[in-house]
């Protein structure tokens, strides 16, 4: 088990490194911060002084080496815009995104398990067809459009919910609902497919023959075996949520990490961008390891493969 984990950690660390490297160089391609932070009339000396102060005058590899050694000392640099430590800005924004993504994933998985299982009970029944159509429509809805419609109906017309902000539980409804639609639609389809498979297996007949109730058959016997594919897709979707809440955060003014990333690109705030990407990549990295452990817990075949 430990060697299995070690192998996984090693092989997932490579993408992590490449992402950090890629963001470092790509960000510097977007332009010279001096153009943004100094007045148009700035002289060449002022520009040079600015670059020297922030270390932008070194050759790129030297800058990268410096950056790495800083990171090793847990120093993530300073924001160009606010002159505050970048780590602070990122850590302030991260919980907002994490809470949003966590609640969304929890609701999506719980809802999808129930709806998908019930739809799978009688394949091709009217309930199944309705669930199928609704889930495919919900997986096909552009999130930004859904968000705007939510604002139009519930905030502008009915006035039930605020248009933005994070204060009070009402403020959470539209952002969570917007993030929820796609993962929910996709997961219902996955759960349904996996449950149909599981329900056609012989052990379900055995369970029924032994007199197990319908709910026990569905949720204890079948669902456990439908877990692996659900987990795969849920993991992919969660990764997407962590780094892709940008649209929702932009529309609802949610002070999360996605918005922070976009803003720091626009403002050439490299230190903040790098810190934000590093943190999200680490989160995704941890999430992937966690998913692998869950596999092993769920599926004895994986467990054995890991031991061997």
């Amino acid at each position, binding site marked *: 088990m430990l060697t299995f984990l070690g192998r996984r950690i090693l092989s997932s660390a*490579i993408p992590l490194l*490449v992402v950090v490297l890629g963001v470092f160089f790509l960000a510097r391609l977007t332009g010279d911060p001096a153009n943004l932070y100094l007045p148009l009339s700035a002289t060449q000396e002022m520009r040079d002084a600015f670059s020297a102060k922030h270390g932008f005058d070194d050759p790129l590899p030297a800058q990268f080496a410096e950056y790495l050694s800083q990171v090793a000392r847990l120093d993530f640099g300073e924001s160009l815009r606010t002159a505050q430590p970048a780590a602070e800005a990122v850590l302030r924004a991260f919980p907002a995104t994490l809470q949003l993504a966590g609640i969304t994933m929890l609701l999506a998985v719980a809802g999808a398990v129930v709806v998908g299982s019930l739809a799978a009970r009688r394949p091709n029944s009217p309930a199944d067809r309705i669930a199928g159509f609704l889930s495919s429509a919900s997986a096909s809805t*552009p999130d930004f459009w859904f968000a705007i419609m939510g604002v139009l109906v519930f905030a502008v017309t009915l006035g039930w919910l605020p248009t933005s902000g994070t204060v009070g539980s009402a403020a959470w409804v539209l952002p969570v609902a917007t993030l929820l639609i796609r993962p929910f639609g996709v997961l219902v389809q996955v759960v349904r497919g996996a449950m149909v498979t599981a329900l056609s297996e012989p052990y379900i007949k055995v369970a029924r023959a032994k007199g197990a109730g319908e709910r026990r058959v569905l949720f204890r016997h079948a669902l456990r075996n439908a877990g692996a594919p659900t987990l795969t897709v849920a993991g992919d979707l969660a990764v997407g949520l962590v780094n892709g809440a940008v649209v929702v955060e932009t529309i609802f003014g949610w002070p999360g990490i996605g918005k922070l990333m976009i803003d720091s690109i626009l403002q050439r705030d490299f230190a903040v961008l790098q810190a934000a990407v590093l943190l999200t990549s680490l989160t995704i990295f941890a999430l992937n390891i966690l998913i692998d452990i869950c596999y092993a817990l769920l599926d004895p075949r994986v467990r054995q493969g890991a031991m061997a």
Partner: protein
Amino acid sequence: MRTHETGEPAGADDGADGGADDGTGAAGRPGSAGLLRLLAADRAAVAACAVLLLVALCALLGPPLFGDLAREQNLRAVKLRPFSTGEGWEFVLGSDSLGRSVLARLVVAAGTTMSVAVPAVALSLLVGSVWGMWAGFHRGWRESVSMRIADVILSFPSLLLAVVVLYVFDPGVANIVAVLAVARIPVYLRTARAESAQLRSRLFVDAARTFGTGDGALIRRHVLPIVLPTLLTVAAVDFCFVMLTESSLSFLGIGIQPPDVSWGLMVAQGRAELRNAWWTAVLPGLAIIITTVAMTQLANWARIAGDPAQRWRLTVPERRGRGRGRARAGRATAGEAPTKEQS
């Protein structure tokens, strides 16, 4: 490891026989007449086909026919509601704050949206599947290196990549296509690799190798025909994803730039007029949803009607469908778990 059951019965509504699985490729699959009959039997699939044909028609003929109309401002017909009569047929879906016909803009935007989505999907399908088949066929270091590259691309925050690239270069159609294509290559790479890694040890491949067939020909003539239906289904579902991403980018202001128009951009522009001209934001969104749902439905239909030997749905959402045919795809996903950690 999973075994690739041969000659398993085809989907519930047979007509597609399992012939493709015996390696004869096209010869084993039902003819186009048979497929058409299958299609006609499924109302949802027929409707999806009709929608997609309409969109394709708009995309092809829209820009030359309606291009001028979509740009023409009529300040006497500003913010007309949908179905308002009296100002001419072009305002049947209303007009925006500059008095441009929403219908004409929708039609022209279909062309822009397709001119991004179609090349992006085609490019990633081509590169990803050739690369994946090659990697899976040769195994060893070529496979591991390819899979690591796919991991890197997949773990890169794709929206961030798009933002950076589109800032460095102009957000023109070609660059958007390039970003989307690169971001989606891993999907096909993984699918093609998984299938071809399994096929390489099959008897008919061994037989062909015994007769001295080279690696390139083995992949082209014995692996490709079996993997292709799966890849095409993946591509159909991915098409939806690419379309949604393009509209998100355009919505965020880093995709299609005015005066060009795409559905996502129309929603973004309509957002400002939400209070007094809601239809300018609602209608393009509906266009996106209808097209995407139609594509998903058709892909699902194709998956059931098509090759029964296909599996591998790591990246593709599972879906509803008819009982027995479905069961297999679900199992394939379950079986993917062990491979993931081996690759």
